[in-house]
């Protein structure tokens, strides 16, 4: 299958700097790889590893901040790309090498119909125009699995779902049957079930056209399910390269080994159990018949429609327990969290916390309740005011709830909390943007702990983090739970993440709870079809599927 002797693309010793005020930042250092027709090469690495830079160099997409190609060569089909003029280079893009990106909503032009954006590929490469291009476009949309392509061709990107948008991107990329398709994190923003479909599509297309596929990802499971060969990047350098199966089963480099061991999706037997050990019998929070309707804006000629974001759900959580709420986007899981935190009003239902319905509390009682329940948000950067120093961020609960802590003790307590989450006291004087993603989430946890809560709601709290950091965060949360006998509601779209952490799991779909149960039971024998599909959607290594 692989044809290493005659690669279509051969990158040798590529070194790229990003220039700024200080010394140039080396984004890619002496990177070499090659890919042949019909082969899939996965470039695996965490954020900042330089995995996207090398392919962007191939596509001539690097300009700002100004990248500086210090050394190296890119041979495409025997031609040195850097020797080509701008026009010749442009002719390769889209026609012979195509690329798809992580976030199709941002990468599709919002003001043009998807049809027009695909037709443009034909037109700008002289491969058809007008009716001809439109017919080809519709055919293409059909091929990538867009239903009713004759109509949907005139839709705008925002009118598609995330998975469909990625299909549109793929259609655009394969329009001229390129020799190479570069896919830069193509499924990261997608739900697992959709991810599986997109990966299937890519594999099918590769089989049909025989193109080479370069896939960039941070997700080891995705990597294993796609890769023929794999290169692992860290800090701008290639640390490991080889046949996929060998790299996964027998990693050579220490970094690769750490990565693979941090994998939460790995075999259940190998992973340490991080579930709670001290669940009390006492019920902390009891939610009954919670419902949230949204009234959709009515048009002039259509009647009002209501949309049920949360549809009559009931559950309870005990002290020291961790409840995982799992569901894909739009399942209503975040709406539940927002209502419990008092950020949104429910349409009906009640939530009893310490014997009192929180939706009927007066202002004073509500203030007291808010101390007891805290939230950790998905995007640690967005959930912190960028103009506030870490000290002010962590001490804010004490400003709002004057009686928690006398002001003269704040400084010491902030230092304590920072220490608790693994940061240093001097970090208190910094601003959020001066930290990495994982560090920011630690700050967010420290803030949540500041008011000494009993329940912490984590809404996709680790989803935005690199896989190795995810593991650290889970460890930290588990440790804190034990120390302070906290309860967690842990909301995520990623089922395997909660496998070793949540005591009980609730699966949500379309605003309803479709399955609930002890974690091990649920993973062992999922009853509901949807839960089963969620579990199956987790990508399987390619070498296993091929063997079947």
């Amino acid at each position, binding site marked *: 299958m692989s044809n290493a002797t005659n690669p279509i693309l051969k990158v040798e010793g590529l070194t790229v700097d990003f220039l*700024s*005020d200080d010394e*140039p930042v080396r984004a890619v250092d002496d990177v070499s790889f090659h890919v042949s027709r019909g082969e899939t090469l996965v470039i695996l690495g965490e954020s900042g590893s330089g995995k996207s830079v090398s392919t962007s160099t191939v596509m001539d997409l690097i300009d700002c901040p100004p990248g500086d190609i210090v050394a190296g060569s890119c041979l495409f089909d025997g031609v040195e790309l850097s020797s080509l003029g701008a026009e010749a280079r442009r002719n390769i893009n889209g026609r012979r090498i195509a690329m798809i990106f992580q976030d199709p909503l941002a990468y599709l032009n919002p003001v043009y119909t998807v049809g027009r954006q695909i037709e443009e590929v034909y037109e700008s490469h002289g491969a058809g125009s007008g009716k001809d291009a439109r017919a080809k476009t519709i055919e293409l949309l059909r091929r990538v699995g867009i239903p009713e392509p004759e109509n949907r061709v005139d839709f705008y990107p925002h009118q598609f779902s995330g998975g469909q948008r990625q299909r549109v991107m793929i259609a655009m990329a394969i329009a001229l049957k390129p020799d190479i398709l570069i896919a830069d994190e193509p499924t990261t923003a997608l739900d697992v079930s959709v991810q599986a479909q997109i990966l299937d599509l890519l594999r099918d297309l590769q089989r049909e056209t025989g193109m080479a596929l370069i896939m960039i990802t941070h997700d080891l499971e995705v990597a294993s399910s796609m890769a023929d060969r794999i290169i692992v990047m860290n800090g701008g350098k290639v640390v490991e390269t080889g046949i996929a199966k060998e790299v996964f089963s027998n990693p050579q480099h220490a970094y690769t080994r750490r990565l693979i061991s941090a994998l939460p999706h790995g075999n259940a037997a190998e992973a340490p159990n991080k579930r709670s050990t001290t669940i009390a019998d006492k019920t902390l929070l009891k939610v009954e018949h919670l419902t949230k309707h949204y009234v959709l804006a009515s048009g002039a000629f259509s009647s009002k429609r209501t949309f049920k974001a949360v549809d009559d759900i009931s559950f309870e959580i005990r002290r020291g327990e961790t409840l995982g709420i799992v569901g894909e986007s739009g399942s209503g899981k975040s709406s539940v969290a927002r209502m419990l935190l008092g950020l949104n009003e429910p349409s009906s239902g009640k939530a009893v916390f310490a014997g009192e319905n929180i939706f009927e509390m007066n202002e004073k009682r509500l203030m007291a309740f808010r101390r007891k329940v805290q939230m950790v*948000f*998905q*995007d640690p950067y967005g959930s912190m005011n960028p103009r506030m120093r870490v000290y002010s961020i962590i001490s804010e609960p004490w400003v709002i*709830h004057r009686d928690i802590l006398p002001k003269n003790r704040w400084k010491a307590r902030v230092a304590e909390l920072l220490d608790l989450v693994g940061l240093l006291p001097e970090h208190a004087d910094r601003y959020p943007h001066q930290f990495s993603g*994982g*560090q920011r989430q630690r700050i967010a946890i420290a803030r949540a702990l500041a008011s000494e809560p009993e329940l912490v709601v984590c809404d996709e709290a680790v989803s935005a983090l690199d896989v190795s950091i995810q593991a650290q965060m889970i460890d930290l949360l588990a440790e804190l739970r034990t120390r302070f006998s906290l309860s967690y509601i842990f909301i995520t779209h990623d089922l395997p993440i909660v496998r070793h952490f949540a005591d009980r799991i609730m699966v949500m779909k379309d605003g309803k709870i479709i399955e609930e149960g002890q974690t091990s039971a649920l993973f062992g024998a999922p009853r509901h079809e949807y839960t089963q599909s969620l579990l199956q959607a987790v990508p399987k290594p390619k070498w296993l599927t091929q063997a079947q």
Partner: protein
Amino acid sequence: MTIITPDIKPAAVPGSGSVLLAYLKRDKLALAAAIFLTIVVLAAVLGPWLVGDAASRLGLRQRNLAPFSLASGWIYILGADTLGRPILARLIVGAQNTFGIAAAAVFASMLVGGTLGLIAGYSERWYSHLILRLADVVMSFPSLLLALTVLYTLGPSITNLVIVLAVTRMPIYLRTARAEVLELRERMFVSAARAMGAKPARIIIRHIAPLVLPTLVTISAIDFATVILSESALSFLGLGIQPPDFTWGAMVANGRGYLATAWWIAFWPGLAIMLTTLSLNILSNWARTVADPQQRWRLQTLRKAAR
């Protein structure tokens, strides 16, 4: 916790003085603008003390003295106006009123407009709608009518001129602040603060206002220029600052009748206005570049690696 993530080194933070100075040096035009503005501000502060007497001393026999002559002393280098007062001295003294009025008007409209915008953006109560309608009314209200009404009922004075200019500029800040708040209030850190139990006042003042302020300040730099020009247009129509007080705008307006015979009377103050507003615009462009992470590199010294 076996893996220690590398502490991502923070990029040079815009805001620290030396970095800004370095960025300023990289953009020669912005540097020139900054130097010019510094000089003008110094003149505005020290001018009346230095040449205040000369600026109001009559020289009826030096009426419309042509510029570039040292015969009557260096102060007459830019010529003399219709009452024989040295234009250079009047430019320097006039800078104080010009800048004072513009700064006061901009500050007042930013404060009032910004506050109303914060309220209108955060709250959905009836008064938010009232504020928006008010902005509509002010937007479509001819500023000249306002100028005339205020000047007639309250009398012509610098304070009242400031009120007129401030009211007419207010909707810009109101609408900008509101638009920003509408976006900011959906941000997660606002939800976080609400989840902690923070009151609306605290959220607006502590969390939203500091993020709205930079936008308003950027607008105010350009608005400062607009106000100087509006003030001169009011002077042209006889509704601006009244003698014996004067601003650059009033100097241009008074000298306009002499453009054919003694061009320098209107030219120098006109040039001063133009250079000042130009400098403000250039500097605000520069500030926007500094603030934009995707453009900031244009102001950085880019050192390539040796190869």
